[in-house]
Every structure is written in structure tokens, then in C-alpha cells.
């Protein structure tokens, strides 16, 4: 019983493969179209995941700003700098003088007019520091300590840019999801139509098979195999497109990255993501075929 079942499925699998190979150009084009459609959301997803890992690193070294009182002089500033340098929790210190801050403000768009109308520089001197760890206890302790220094007006966590980036990443994820949904529907539609055309050309075979005792699942089987196999191949081609594109981008970006001293390469799809992509694609192919078979086979009821 099981052997007969296996024989039958093996037979259908081989028959379907033969059918795919017998029309190589059609098969190739469909696989490429579906592969490209899938590679778009996958590509953006990979890019986002890379971006996420970079910002993950950034989030590990939180940034704080120390705004000094207006009346501080150069000695006070030097003293604070020494204090900061002696603190083991702080990895980098950057001094931003009030003049530098005003200059930066004047360069920024739309604010130049405002700064011109100012009688004197309202901005304080400031230190921007990066801390080694990001446990909130340590950060709070450090903030309290620095706040207690008489020269310090205010200490502020600078996480706003990070929040903005996370918001941007969230938007990116939404775009990926939207694109993936739309293109999945497109793939189901492509498969639906491919199977519809096959059913039309196999009209006689289906009708005769039904007349001599074929069950619906027997009739459906080759079409479902066809959809699943083509989906599988499309997933694999999407994987190839994305992997190849990443390799190409990394190579192109090499010179630029080398110069700027940033250590950043696009990581390819993880094994887990690769398998998910291919399985998902096969599922889409199966679903398109299943829907098509369901909506067309009843039209070929023998009369």
C-alpha cells in the first residue's frame, strides 16, 4: 500500500520534472520572473538586517552630553576634561566649544537667520562622551556624578538619533513586509495562470481520467507538484540573485570602505533565512497551483 503510494508519487515527480524540462524556455522564464520578484523584498531584508547589526553595535556605546555653565573658564574646562579622562567608564571624550556649536548651528539649514539676529552666543560649552557599557545603573550613576560637579549645568543622554534610526528601521521593515506581501500575491497569480493554461491543454486527459475512476487528488497531484517545484526553483533563483548581488556590492564598495576606514561588509543571507526563503517560495507555488486547480477542475466534470 505504502509502496504503491510512493511509486505513484515518484512517478508524478518524475513526470512533472520531465514536463518542466520539456519546455525549457518557458520554465526558465517563469522561474526568473518569480525569482526576481522574490529577490526584491529579500534584498531589502538583507540590507536592513545588516543595518540593524551596525546600529546594534552603536547602541552598545551610549553617548552623553555635558553642558557646562556659562561662567566656566578654561581652567574649569581643563579640570573637567582631566576628570573625564580618569573615569574608566568613559571611552571617548569630545569637547565642543560654544563658538564651534554656534558655527555648526549657523551652517544648518533654516537656522542661519535666527543665529544672525542673536546679540550674543546663547550656547554653552559642552563635552560629548561615549561610555564603555550601557547598563542603566552605571549610566545613571555616571550622570548623577557629573551632574554634581559645580561647573556642569546639565547632563543629557543622546539617544534621540538612535531612536530615530530605529523608527527608520521599523519603517523599513514595514516596507519589506508590504513588498513581500504584494509580490507573494503576484507569484500566486503567476502560478495560478500557469496552471490554468496547463489545465486547459490537459482538458481531455482530466476528463477521461475522471470518467475511468480518478480521484480529485489524483488529478490535482501533478499540478501541485508542478507549482511546488517551480516555487522551489524560484526561491533558489531568488537566493542566487541576492547572494550574487551582495557579493557584487561588497566588491564595488571595497575601495570606498577601504579609504574611509569603516569596517562594514554586507553579510549574505543566513542559512536559516535561506531555507525560509526557499520553503516559503515553494509554498507560494503550491498555493497558486492549489487555488488554480480548485477553481478550474470543477469545470471539467464529465457530462
Amino acid at each position: 500500500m505504502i509502496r504503491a503510494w510512493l511509486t505513484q508519487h515518484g512517478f508524478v515527480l518524475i513526470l512533472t520534472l520531465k514536463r518542466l524540462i520539456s519546455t525549457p524556455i518557458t520554465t526558465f522564464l517563469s522561474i526568473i520572473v518569480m525569482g526576481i520578484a522574490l529577490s526584491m523584498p529579500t534584498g531589502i531584508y538583507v540590507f536592513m538586517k545588516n543595518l540593524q547589526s551596525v546600529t546594534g553595535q552603536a547602541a552598545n556605546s551610549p553617548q552623553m552630553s555635558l553642558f557646562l555653565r556659562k561662567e566656566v573658564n578654561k581652567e574649569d574646562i581643563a579640570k573637567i576634561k582631566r576628570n573625564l579622562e580618569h573615569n574608566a567608564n568613559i571611552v571617548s571624550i569630545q569637547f565642543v566649544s560654544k563658538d564651534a556649536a554656534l558655527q555648526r548651528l549657523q551652517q544648518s539649514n533654516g537656522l542661519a537667520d535666527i543665529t544672525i539676529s542673536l546679540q550674543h552666543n546663547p550656547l554653552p560649552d559642552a563635552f560629548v562622551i561615549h561610555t564603555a557599557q550601557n547598563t542603566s545603573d552605571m549610566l545613571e550613576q555616571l550622570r548623577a556624578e557629573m551632574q554634581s560637579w559645580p561647573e556642569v549645568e546639565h547632563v543629557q543622554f543622546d539617544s534621540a538619533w538612535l531612536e530615530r534610526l530605529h523608527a527608520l528601521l521599523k519603517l523599513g521593515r514595514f516596507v519589506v513586509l508590504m513588498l513581500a506581501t504584494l509580490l507573494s500575491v503576484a507569484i500566486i497569480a503567476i502560478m495560478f495562470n500557469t496552471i490554468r493554461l496547463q489545465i486547459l491543454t490537459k482538458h481531455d486527459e482530466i476528463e477521461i481520467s475522471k470518467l475511468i475512476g480518478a480521484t480529485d487528488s489524483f488529478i490535482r497531484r501533478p499540478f501541485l507538484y508542478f507549482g511546488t517545484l517551480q516555487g522551489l526553483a524560484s526561491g533558489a533563483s531568488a537566493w542566487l540573485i541576492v547572494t550574487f548581488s551582495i557579493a557584487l556590492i561588497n566588491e564595488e564598495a571595497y575601495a570606498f570602505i577601504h579609504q574611509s576606514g569603516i569596517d562594514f561588509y554586507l553579510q549574505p543571507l543566513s542559512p536559516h533565512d535561506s531555507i525560509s526563503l526557499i520553503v516559503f517560495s515553494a509554498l507560494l507555488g503550491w498555493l497558486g497551483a492549489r487555488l488554480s486547480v480548485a477553481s478550474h477542475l470543477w469545470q471539467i466534470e464529465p457530462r
Partner: protein
Amino acid sequence: MIVFKNVSKRYPDGYVALNNIDLTVEPGEMVFLTGHSGAGKSTLLKLISAIERPTSGTIAISGQNIARLKLGAIPYLRRKIGFIFQDHKLLFDRNVFNNVLLPLQISSFDSKTAASRVRAALDKVGLLKKEKSMPITLSGGERQRLCIARAIVHRPNILIADEPTGNLDVEYARDIMALFTSFNQVGVTVMIATHDASLLEDTQHRIILLKQGKLAV
């Protein structure tokens, strides 16, 4: 074996193809169904393999009422029956061997058993040498024998033939009839619809006459 009780078939357009048919065909019997075209012969045969469903009445095959058979059970009913269609219903995209193989593929036979059964069926109808031919190259008589081979390859208990000698000359028709007789001799119940009076002239088998959807006695 085949029992019709008060069976009527009315088509959606109001045409009554069969009107209150009561009919019993015994196991192993061979019967002829005759009448003018449009008398309801084809409809009656199609009811037996649930290609058509009756409007009212019951049809029992080996005790099972098929008038109310669920859709999912119909394929298994059809596998018990060998049906020879009036319009042949051969597949022209595959050779003789693969045409006869189809019922066995449907019933999940393993390929070794299937191949030997296909050859046995082709041998029985005298087409063994033509197993690689395409149906389009066969003569009318050969195509009819191919249909018969496909109908008997899964060894059904019931063989139904709708106008099996339709366009054949007398010589061929006699061959075909001899085949049916030989199946009947090994216990197969055979029902043949025909309007060919010459087939019925010297037969000892029962003849059922249909007139405008009714049994004429």
C-alpha cells in the same frame, strides 16, 4: 447485480430522457439495450457509472445505491466498471500502451504488474504488436479494440459499451461482438447499447428495448 427501481432522468431544460425505469441485470448476464437514437440508451448507461445522476428512483450495483452516492465515492464505483464510450475518449498525445495504462495508474498499480496487465489486455484484443503506435495511426476497428483493452485492463465485473460497433463494417463488428461474448463467458456482466439491428438478429442474449425513455416489453 444491477437493479433500477422507478428511475427517471429529467434534464434541467425539462427533457425527460428516462421515465420510470424498472430493470434488473443479473450477475454474469449479457444484455443488449436497443432503441432509436434519443430513446435514452446512453443516459441509462451513464447512470450506472454515475456520469449522470437520476432525478428520482434508486440504482443498486452489488447492493449499493449509487443514485445518492457521495461525490468522493464515485471514482471507486467507476473503477469497478469498464466503460466503452461512444466517442472512444482516447488520448491522442500518448501511444497505445500508455492509453491502456491509464486506469492502472489511477488505481495505483506498481509499474511491473501494470505493464504485464496492459500487455495481457492488448493481447486479448489483438493489439499487442501495436503497443507503441499512436492512436491516430489506428483504423476504426483498432481504435475500438483499444477502447475495449482500456476498459478491461483493470478486470472489472461489469463491462458497459455504448454503440461499440457504431461506424464499423460487419466483419469488424462481428469480431468486436465475439470479444464481448468471451468476456461474458468468464463471468463479466456485459451491457451493450446498440441501434444496429444486425447485431441482434442471431443473439440468444436478452434484448431490452427503450422507447422514448420507457421500457417497451
